[in-house]
């Protein structure tokens, strides 16, 4: 009798109960506003604490004071005198580093000799804290803008190279064989199959590289910069002017979020073919 299946309701003494659900989860879904709510909650907490007095003014500046400092910075026109040189350094430095990084990464991905020659070199310079080389860059490129460009370029170059050749390595080889089987030229295969196929990896490398560029921006402005977000933060820090320090940090955070959102936009445009 054990083998026969019972029709519903014919099972004599068993009680019917629903099968418990145990699937689901492990699948992140977009939840708008949650991220913003966390920010707002933390800031509200800090504001409440500093006003009520259980956070002393020495520990954390009052968020409303930071906002006021920021408004002053904007109204005095100083904001743009700091922001413009910083953005220039960021854009020029990152453009050089990312440009060379992607180009060399593609060459490493395509040519065995370049790979054999450069991969150990990249591995050797990747772990160097680029800030440690700042004095060297000052000697090489002078105390002016060139050394700052060089530092940011160098810092973005290494992660970009590694991300790019990894992305080229990961391009589906069956697609390349397909290109060859239809008699596509080498240039066409690289341009129409390898590059678009490597684009997801290149863009995620770009995300990391630009975050590093913002970190290095402050380091670059530690030496001989009178204007710039980094210089502003360092000056405020040495005076223990926490409101100004936080105003500068907020600018860097906003810069980071903006860059990340920008890359997200580019990804949605260039990688629309992915599900």
């Amino acid at each position, binding site marked *: 009798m054990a083998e026969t299946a019972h029709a519903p309701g014919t099972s004599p003494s068993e009680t019917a109960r629903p099968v418990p659900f145990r699937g689901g989860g492990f699948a992140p879904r977009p939840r708008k506003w949650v991220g913003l709510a966390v920010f707002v909650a933390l800031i509200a907490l800090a504001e409440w604490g500093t006003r009520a007095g259980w956070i002393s003014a020495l520990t954390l500046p009052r968020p409303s004071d930071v906002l006021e400092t920021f408004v002053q910075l904007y109204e005095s026109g100083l904001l743009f005198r700091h922001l413009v040189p910083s953005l220039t350094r960021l854009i020029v430095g990152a453009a050089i580093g990312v440009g060379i990084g992607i180009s060399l990464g593609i060459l490493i991905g395509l040519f065995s000799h370049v790979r054999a020659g450069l991969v150990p070199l990249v591995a050797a310079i990747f772990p160097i804290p680029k800030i440690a080389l700042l004095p060297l860059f000052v000697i090489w490129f002078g105390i002016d803008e060139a050394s700052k460009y060089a530092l940011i370029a160098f810092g973005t170059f290494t992660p970009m190279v590694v991300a790019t050749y990894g992305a080229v390595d990961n391009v589906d080889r069956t697609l390349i064989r397909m290109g060859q089987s*239809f008699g596509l030229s080498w240039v066409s295969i690289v341009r*129409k199959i390898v590059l678009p*196929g490597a684009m997801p990896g290149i863009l995620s490398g770009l995300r990391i590289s630009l975050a590093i560029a913002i970190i290095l921006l402050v380091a670059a402005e530690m030496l001989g910069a009178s204007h710039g977000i980094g210089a502003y933060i360092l000056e405020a820090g040495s005076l223990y002017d926490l409101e100004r320090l936080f105003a500068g940090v907020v600018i860097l955070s906003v810069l980071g979020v903006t860059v990340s959102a920008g890359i997200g936009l580019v990804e949605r445009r260039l990688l629309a*073919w992915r599900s």
Partner: protein
Amino acid sequence: MDIRLEGISHSYGDFEVMRDITLHVPAGRIVCIVGPSGCGKSTLLRFIGGLERPRQGRVLQLGQAPQGCLNPLTYIFQDFALLPWRSVEGNVSLVLEDHGITGAAARAIIDDVLARTRLTDFARALPRQLSGGMKQRVAIARALAVNPAVMLMDEPLSALDSQTRELLMDDLISLWTRANFTAVYVTHNLAEAVRLGHSIVVLSRRPGQIREIVEIDMPLARRAFGDPELDLYQRRLWEMMRDEARAADSELLHG
């Protein structure tokens, strides 16, 4: 254009995969290659299309490719090999661009091949939006666009479910009936082989050698699903292969 294989042998190091294969593929016929897994049938197909070189022997093209043929030896792959970032028509245009065919000339070819594979309505869709059967029809359309002399089909239906496979077999038969293309068709599925092959080459297990060539005279258009005569052929092929397949299977287990 005919294809002739002369004394093809191949090995990877000490690992002999193929021994002395000589075969003639006449124009306008479909030659199916069947054999147990690991007998080197896909490797053989890569030799024919020039994607890989055999250790010994040679592959010859006999005669001229027909007029307007852009790529005489054209593959259809098991996993479709479509560029996921190009639309259906973009994937077809890919293989025309390198021949300098763009604009109206390309448009005419693309429209023609998409119509022949019933994909006209999906010209702008991306591969991820298509079912497996549709993806393989795109790959067939792409192959037709270069007007091949010989189609090299590497398990083209193996990634599809059995119903889609039936539908695509009908599509292939009607395409062949219209154009009488030459094809080398590699498969492990004997039902496909007896439906589509004018001759069926049975390879032994590794090292792959030709065990027998079975000719089926029945016209392709008359070969229907479940035809008793085809079933007999299929049974005969299976009897020929069963012991080999079992031996090949246990060989893999022993490494």
